[in-house]
């Protein structure tokens, strides 16, 4: 059975431990009362469902999947089908509903799909997988660096801030054009070497 694509995060917060294999001893939804045969079947269903989930792109940054974005938190068997646990990225992300619809549609053949939004612990860009970050970079979006904790308001001149490398030519001669970009999760930059504008996935 292939490992799920998501990071399983301890309920009390803390650092996600990385992609974890589901514990085969853990009950899979209601299947813990079923026969071994049914349990095996359920396990196959779950891994097939993970396989489908892994293919669903983020609607706003389609180069990475929902799983690579780190917003799929869990997948469980229910009596009628499956339950998918998602964590929203930004409070007002307009893609939240679309993502839920896409998940429902993609998993429709597994029965009734219940979607649970789990807000805590809050999503952070640290949960974007390394593969996801590499794909962002290749696509021309500078991936987020490590998210830092609460920061005091900075009043330093923009030029003295840490430079971000251009995802196209690698030059660090770049400047921020806009703190907000085409979506809630990105900011707009430009490269002073190759003259191309590019987006940066903001670390939060």
């Amino acid at each position: 059975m292939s490992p799920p694509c998501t990071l399983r995060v301890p309920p009390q917060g803390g650092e996600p431990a990385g992609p974890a294999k589901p514990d085969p001893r853990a009950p899979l939804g209601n299947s813990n009362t079923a026969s071994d045969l049914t349990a095996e079947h359920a396990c196959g269903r779950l891994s097939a469902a993970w396989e489908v989930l892994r293919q669903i792109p983020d609607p706003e940054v389609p180069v990475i999947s929902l799983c690579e974005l780190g917003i799929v938190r869990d997948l469980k068997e229910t009596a009628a089908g499956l339950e998918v646990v998602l964590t929203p990225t930004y409070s007002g992300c307009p893609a939240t509903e679309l993502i839920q619809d896409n998940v429902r549609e993609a998993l429709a053949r597994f029965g009734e799909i219940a979607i649970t939004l789990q807000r805590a612990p809050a999503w952070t860009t640290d949960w974007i997988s390394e593969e996801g970050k590499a794909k962002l970079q290749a696509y021309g979006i500078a991936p987020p660096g490590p998210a830092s904790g609460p920061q005091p308001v900075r009043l330093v001149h923009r030029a003295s801030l840490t430079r971000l490398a251009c995802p196209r030519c690698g030059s660090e001669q770049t400047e921020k054009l806009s703190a907000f970009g085409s979506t809630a999760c990105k900011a707009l930059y430009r490269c002073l070497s190759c003259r191309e504008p590019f987006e940066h996935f903001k670390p939060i």
Partner: protein
Amino acid sequence: MSQQSIKVGDKPELRYLLRIADSCLVLSQRIAEWCGHGPILEEDLALSNMALDLVGQARGLLTRAGELDGQGHDEDQLAFLRDERQYFNPVLMELPRGDFAFTTVRNFAAASWLRLLWQRLQHSSDAEVAAIAGKAVKEAAYHQQHAADWLVRLGDGTEESRRRVEAALAELWPYFNELFISDAVDAAAAASGLGPAWSSLHADWQAAMEEILSEATLAAPKPSRYVPSGHLGIHSEHMGHMLAEMQYLQRAYPGGVW
């Protein structure tokens, strides 16, 4: 046929959450009015994005408030079917958007206040409120930083930008008092652990304000004794007009969806 208005109960925990939820919702509506009118394209995007964050925060809190109220009202009903006196945001949030200097001063003051509030609400006795706060606190910090950048540029900018930002400060200053009121609703929330007494945020907010004003070479206006009463449901003349526009569609076409 138009849609009947709804009323919420008077449980203090409900009122406390609505004061915050309505602050986010009403400020979001005012900021969103900049969409298509920003002074530059980047700022148009920024203001729309901040409005989206705020409306997202409001949705979470309104949903929770609806559960606490126990009348079966969802976020949409609470947003679109309450009349003016059933809204409990401080008056600051509902003032018309004004010019860009006015919006910037208000955004900095509001984001600084919300950031402090969310920081404390992360430890709320209500797990759902704490979860909403865990996300919102990061967004408020980003909004605060963005408004701070502009405030410094406007204050320490041209003669005209300075004149406008000084006028905005003078006009807005008395409204800030309402962000730190104390009353029974506030005391009950502090006692139950739902959220902080707003007065306990004042010292940190004042420090943030002074730091940024000093960097912007601006002076804080003289303190005012005026305390607006939006938190009690008594609003400025602007609120009704704003709600009329915000609620029109749901009132005219009840339950209409896109």
